[in-house]
């Protein structure tokens, strides 16, 4: 346990060090980097993905995965646009969309927690299926013409330089930290992620927990998408396609184990900052977004490969030490 803690700490330390290097390079490279506009913009461009990454952290620590979030985002956006186009007043449409987010989450959760299917397969089906439903709703059109106040909510600063989405993110972040690190619910998330059977025998309501998490994940994805719709001002069937790569990378790079059971929000927060600054810096020196995605892919692999190597080296050293001790004991 102690060693685990140490390892995590050192991982976060490593992230922080890389982050500082990236920030310094950015400052040197570009004079606009430190401006308030750029800093706010840096968050704004990814704010929806960051919000979803918070929920994903819970799910991955719990030992599951949700590949369908980006498609849920797409579905939410298309549903909102579809209802808006049909003449439903926007506030009602927003409520309906959020309700659908809850239902979609419950649908995923049902197959995973009640029927007991692997979340990877269920959410893979969701990844394809929800996107399909979104396509049915908007086909190949692009729907915009949202009311003025809706777009303003997404694009204009609300509090100081911060737009609504950033405020929601910070509120959710605080809530997530409290729930994950200071509540019984959070403890259970870790326990289930570490060993599902043990959790069940200890009286943790595993099914109920998983259900809650998947509902939360989809609802938050839906919410995030509403924010994205407000920010972009128009919706298409392919909205948010491929976001799951970014979101999962943010979580895993933050030191959350893909097998569940370990991870902290501090790590995820640092990895989010790192990815944002890296992308922002690359944009400022005109590296295409496609190359950026490639770099994120490399980061994703390294984020697991490096700790593995570290572990292997440590194991080797421990074994040598143990062998040495064994010999002295034998004599």
């Amino acid at each position, binding site marked *: 346990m102690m060693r685990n803690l140490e390892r995590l700490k050192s991982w976060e330390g490593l992230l922080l060090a890389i982050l500082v290097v990236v920030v310094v390079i950015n400052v040197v490279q570009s004079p606009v980097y430190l401006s308030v506009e750029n800093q706010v913009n840096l968050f704004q461009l990814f704010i929806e993905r960051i919000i979803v990454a918070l929920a994903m952290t819970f799910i991955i620590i719990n030992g599951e995965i949700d590949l369908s979030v980006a498609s849920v985002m797409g579905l939410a956006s298309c549903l909102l646009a579809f209802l808006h186009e049909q003449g439903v007043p926007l506030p009602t449409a927003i409520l309906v969309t959020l309700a659908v987010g809850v239902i979609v989450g419950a649908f995923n959760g049902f197959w995973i927690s009640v029927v007991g*299917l692997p979340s990877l397969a269920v959410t893979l089906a969701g990844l394809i299926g929800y996107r399909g439903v979104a396509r049915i709703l908007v086909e190949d059109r692009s729907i915009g013409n949202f009311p003025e106040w809706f777009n303003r909510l997404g694009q204009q600063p609300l509090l100081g330089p911060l737009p609504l989405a950033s405020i929601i993110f910070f509120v959710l972040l605080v809530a997530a930290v409290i729930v994950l690190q200071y509540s019984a619910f959070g403890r259970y998330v870790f326990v289930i992620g570490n060993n599902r059977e043990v959790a069940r025998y200890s009286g943790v309501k595993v099914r109920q927990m998983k259900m809650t998490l998947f509902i939360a994940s989809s609802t938050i994805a839906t919410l995030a998408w509403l924010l994205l719709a407000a920010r972009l001002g128009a919706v298409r069937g392919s909205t948010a396609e491929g976001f799951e790569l970014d979101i999962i990378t943010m979580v895993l790079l933050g030191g959350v184990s893909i097998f569940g059971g370990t991870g902290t929000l501090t790590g995820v927060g640092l990895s989010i900052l790192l990815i944002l600054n890296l992308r922002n810096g690359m944009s400022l020196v005109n590296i295409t977004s496609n190359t950026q995605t490639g770099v994120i*892919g490399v980061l994703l692999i390294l984020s697991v490969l490096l700790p*593995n190597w570290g572990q292997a080296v440590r194991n080797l050293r421990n074994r040598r030490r143990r062998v040495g001790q064994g010999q002295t004991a034998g004599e």
Partner: protein
Amino acid sequence: MMDAIKRYLRPEQIRELSLVFLIIVTLIFFGTQIEGYYSGRTFNRITTTVAIIAVVAVGETLVILTRNYDLSVGSIVGFTAYFVGTQLANNNGISPLAAVLMAIGLGAVMGLINGVLVAYGRVPSIIVTLGTLAIYRALLVNYSGAKTVTTDSLPQWLLDLARVNLFSVGAFDIRPMVALALLIVVIFQLVITYLPFGRRLYAIGSNPEAARVAGFPTQRIVMTAYVLCGSLSGLAGFMFLARFGNITVVAAQGMELSAIAAVVVGGVNVFGGSGTMIGALLGALMINTLEQSLIRWLQISEFWRDALLGLLILVAVATDAVIINRLRNLWARSGLQARPATETPGVQAQEEAGHDA
């Protein structure tokens, strides 16, 4: 009587038979809905599309049998299609054999990278291939410089692969590409049924720890599965090039989903250890028949395709978990009582997979 049936029909075969039945039902249904549905054209459109997906699905099955995934196959197909296409466009004189070998070699290298990271780097396969999915695509976009391979720049022999008739069965023509795909399915079905390498894939997928303890070179086998998957994806890239001719940088984007969907619908267990190539082929056939038919069916728009595909996958996985596993346990139990001595490794592997889920 019951025993005799049980002996010759294992749950896997029941699953495959029901898939065949479903495909036939689909064909009959759309036959009544679409005019001129049973034509050579429909047949060709479905078979040439299935041919490409099936080759990728065979590779994907090899990997999934070992309880791993390969999400990068779409990018590998796109990359090889574009790369080989550019080479052939620049130099029409490259011999067919060299072009095919180039495609397979390129795919093998990309598969090797995946395999080394998964097997020796001990990085979970879903992370590695999610990463390389992005990396290979990014490399392709940078390599291409936003240019496109066009059909008229390609040599004629290549385009003929998807268009010329190899032989006919009644009114239905068999294209060389389709024959090649069928050949690959049969070869790899034989490999996983009879070769030690194939049996070890099942063993590793059923219980990686036990396989390692039993002394199998687990890492090498998993890596080989990835290299084969990459090579097959490279070959599929070549077929993709022959089929479409016009290749852009987004070629075959999302094909990993089609391939995994085919594999899952075909009854390959997503947790490894059970499944067949024939199943994967049937899965691909089922999905593409549905897709191609929906496009021509005027009652609902083609935008329904993805939604139905998602539903199909979910239904396939759910039936597997709920019905097939129960059947499998039943079979295993009665099998143990009836003939304890003739248990084959395959039955044991499947039995274990059944207990796992």
